[in-house]
């Protein structure tokens, strides 16, 4: 089992898909010579050339829309939106076009495009470079939404996203690029729509995405010391959502915490809580806890930024509260 960073894992999925299939190509701002603002596509220009590792102007609408158009003609473009915040510029194309073209055409067309993007706080860029907006896209029928938290997952899921015949919005988290993890020798596609249990436990289920998976695992270890046994589950794909896995875990533990970096209000955790309270109502021994960013834009000053977004302690506090040990 080779070890890759999350960054290398993304690159590996892209590269292998491009080697296997001429229809796969990349578009994005500064992805060629510079290798992307996160260095994900470094070295790929040399291997695949500028036609397939295609620098675009600063034109998020056209870049998303051209990827859609190319996908309608049988290509499998992977469009990189440099920061999630700029998905707001491409929103019309992603939401009104990509998500709906198959439907509006009565099934005549497919739109096999991937919109890769990244975000996340922890480096004080201020309010316009670190939002987490995955919840928006979960609200839009026709899109699939992926948010991977480990090298293995990001590689296997990106592969599946590229070969999925539907538009996929693929979220990466900035702080995860350097983390390392083992991956299978050969790429194993990870089916979209399947959650991953990172840690089994008996007393409470923590459902976490992105960076918060890692924070939740830390919190789980801490909790263990206090005799609380925590199960940590990462849905990995937010749309479709593996409700069954989440519900069955909660039916076992009878308690749930949902954790993500996005703002709590109207965040993905709201949907998970709504699903769980409905499907596991009789099993729940405590209200479902939500952990997410506090209700403000992201501030610049590091002390304030750290206060706004959640960390392991916040997950731990929620765990303790839900088991009555707050």
């Amino acid at each position, binding site marked *: 089992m080779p070890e890759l960073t999350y960054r290398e894992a993304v690159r590996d999925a892209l590269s292998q898909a491009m080697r296997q299939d001429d229809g796969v190509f990349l578009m994005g701002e500064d992805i060629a010579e510079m290798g992307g603002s996160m260095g994900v596509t470094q070295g790929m220009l040399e291997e695949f050339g500028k036609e397939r590792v295609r620098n675009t102007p600063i034109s998020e609408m*056209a870049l998303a829309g051209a990827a*859609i158009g190319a996908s309608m003609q*049988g290509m499998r473009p992977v469009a990189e939106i440099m920061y999630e915040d700029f998905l707001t510029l491409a929103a019309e194309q992603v939401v*009104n076009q990509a998500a709906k073209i198959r439907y509006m055409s009565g099934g005549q067309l497919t739109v096999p495009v991937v919109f890769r993007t990244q975000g996340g706080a922890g480096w004080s860029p201020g309010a316009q470079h670190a939002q987490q907006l995955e919840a928006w896209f979960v609200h839009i029928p026709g899109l699939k939404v992926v948010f991977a938290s480990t090298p293995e997952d990001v590689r296997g899921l990106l592969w599946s996203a590229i070969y999925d015949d539907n538009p996929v919005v693929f979220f990466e988290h900035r702080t995860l690029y350097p983390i390392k993890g083992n991956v299978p020798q050969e790429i194993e596609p990870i089916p979209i729509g399947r959650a991953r249990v990172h840690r089994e436990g008996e007393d409470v289920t923590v459902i976490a995405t992105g960076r918060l998976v890692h924070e939740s695992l830390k919190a789980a270890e801490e909790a263990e010391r206090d005799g609380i046994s925590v199960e940590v589950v990462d849905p990995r794909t937010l749309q479709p959502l593996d409700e069954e896995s989440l519900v069955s875990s909660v039916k076992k533990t009878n308690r749930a915490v949902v954790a993500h970096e996005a703002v709590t209000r109207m965040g993905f955790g709201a949907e998970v809580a709504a699903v769980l309270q409905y499907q596991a109502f009789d099993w729940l021994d405590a209200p479902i806890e939500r952990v997410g960013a506090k209700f403000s834009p992201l501030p610049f000053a590091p002390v304030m930024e750290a206060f706004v977004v959640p960390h392991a302690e916040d997950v731990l506090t929620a765990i303790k509260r839900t088991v009555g040990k707050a």
Partner: protein
Amino acid sequence: MATAEHKATLAKSELGDVLREMLLIRRFEEKVEERFRAGELPGFLHVAIGQEASAVGVCRALEDGDVIASTHRAHGHTLAKGTHPNELMAELYGKQEGCSHGYGGSMHLYDVERGNMGANAVIGGGLPHVTGAALAFQMRGEPRVALAFFGDGATNIGTFHEALNLAQLWQVPAVFVLEDNKWAESTPESQHSPIRDLSDRAKAFGMKTLKADGQDVEAVYKTARQALDHARSGKGPVFVHLDCVRFHGHYIGDPQVYRDKDEARKLAETRDPIKLLREKLKLSISDEEFEELDTEVTEMVEASVEFAKSGTDPAPEDALKNVYA
């Protein structure tokens, strides 16, 4: 590459067909207005009455394999691109036999087999798709062109700027056809654009520009042909500016309170593309022949209504199909 049968100008022998096509579109849309007013058609509809020469002239110039993206004003483009009136009318009635199988409606007409990548209810929404489709053709070395229709109002939206800029930057085989009817809904061009010649829009990208009288189908064809040849031969995209006229309201039912009542009437007298072509053909097509043509297309249109009405309604729960592939 331009195939032999595609000439730079319309052959005299084709003009009868061209007239029939334009007349079919006209009668079709008149019927749509009538059926909408009768309360038979659901949804939000826009007719392009007066703009038939643009649809027919441009689509005639396309070759097999070329694709178009259309707008909210899509019936004419769709018929001109080869969709049978039955399938179009069935769509407007929300039937499974419709060209979008009842999922799309007037602003979302698709006919992929015939190269129609879709109408679009969002202004500018289809423009980057054309850039992207043309990019796919370029990358695969296919001699195909992607062509977008859009209106004068659409030249104000950022999507327009980005999509054309990208197309020119990458020199993809795309053609952008501006149907400049001087109105964006209720807003006259002077109120929505600071320039009086919208060809100047293309200067921001250094894109080749061609201009034609959009009411003269021969001129439209010739210009579209030139643009397509240019794009197809790898010389880059072309911006085609057609000077057009919207005879009716923005949408069916629009009382046009904002428009001088005489304007449209006068324009219909002097710039009706069907009248203009008919006059040109005075010698070759007699009044009787024209009446015959009219009867023929009117019957086609009537038949399309019958076809549509006897079509199959989707089951309610079909709504949950086609969300994903």
